[in-house]
């Protein structure tokens, strides 16, 4: 729950500008990007995701660093990723 998971923005959902499809470690899921309304990310940019919401924009290096950190955490990250995979907010 406290883990920030990096995801790459793929596209925004038609008619729902606060929802975006992101790629997280090869898994595509829809997340809410409404908290970045002041400076919305563009497709190809990276965000840090907390419980289904993008909380900050990050660069690709930071995304890679965050991901390898998470992979090092092991079970807690696997559980979080599994939960994200089951998440269907749209």
């Amino acid at each position, binding site marked *: 729950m406290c883990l920030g998971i990096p995801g790459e923005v793929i596209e925004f959902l038609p008619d729902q500008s606060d929802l975006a499809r992101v790629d997280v470690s090869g898994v595509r899921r829809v997340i809410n990007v409404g908290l970045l309304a002041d400076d919305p990310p563009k497709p190809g940019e990276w965000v840090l995701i907390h419980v289904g919401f993008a909380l*900050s924009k990050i660069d690709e290096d930071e995304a890679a660093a965050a991901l390898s950190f998470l992979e090092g955490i092991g079970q807690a990250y696997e559980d979080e990723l599994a939960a994200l995979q089951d998440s269907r907010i749209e």
Partner: protein
Amino acid sequence: MRFVDEFRDADKAHALAAKIAALCEPGRQYKLMEVCGGHTHTIYKHGLEDYLPEQVTLVHGPGCPVCVIPMGRMDDAMALAAEPDVIMTSFGDMMRVPGSHGSFFDAKARGTDIRMVYSPLDSLKIARSNPGKRVIFMAIGFETTAPSTAMTMLRAAAEGLTNFSVFCNHVTIIPAIKAILDSPDLRLDGFIGPGHVSTVIGCRPYEFIARDYGRPVVVAGFEPLDILQSIYMLMQQLSEGRAEIENQYARVVPWDGNVVALKAIGETMELRPYFEWRGLGFISHSALKVRDQYAQFDAERLFSVPGVRVADPKACQCGEVLKGVLKPWECKVFGTACTPETPIGTCMVSPEGACAAYYNYGRLTRTRVKEASRP
């Protein structure tokens, strides 16, 4: 791969450790608190304490939202889950937290409809597709997760949903830090500030720590080198007699935080007069409740909640661990009666709890060796 690779070659870590050691004044002890459970996890996983000179001690703080939920609130959540037609939804982290009569997992096994969700938006979707049910989201977390609960309530309002509510247990980090600063048990020299929480609140709210208490704060990232770098920055301030707020994690944390997130929290929630924290007791203005304007989404108003204060199990010393007065292994039940499989206290439940982090990585740190060899 940047930081982990850099850390793996360990040269930079050792170089930073040497710089930290060089800043230690002879005879002076330094106690630095890492507030955030994520930092505690990194410190144990990578054995960062072993890199530090003996004079520098890291004290683990109260920044694990699972760990600070008192047992009475867990019992309240159980009571809500047992109400007719209710579907209780919760983050996975809360599922094993023991209440007086077992955990969410135990209740689920007994047939109570409790579902694990990744996001409050998943709860909202469950509410949409189960119009005959009343869906409650067990909201927990510091300012990192509070915006998502806020945004979900705003969305529920926009959609006109009438069968979704929130059992709000959001807590705020600043009053907890203040309570620790005011506590006579512990004298701290500086703080490693939380990373993700600061993404939302920014760095300004910590200014009182420097101004009123004369202690430095460095907001830190989560990788091993981030934490060592932050300790170095704190030690630099201490050696120069400065007390300032610095941001080591500026690549993610904006100085002013996330204004949209703060607005969403302010729109839907307000401070409670007081809230009970496990181990820290009642702290004024330290938690959030749903605002009157959104009362239709407040489970505490829609249902009757017992609200009974329950004392922690006698053997459990989570309180002392959360305040940093005890190290995890100094607790009477650590690793014997209390393990991650059968936790007695919350610090053993969450992977970010100091006890679970320590138990999982089983580090025989310098301090522990010293403790163990004491006659």
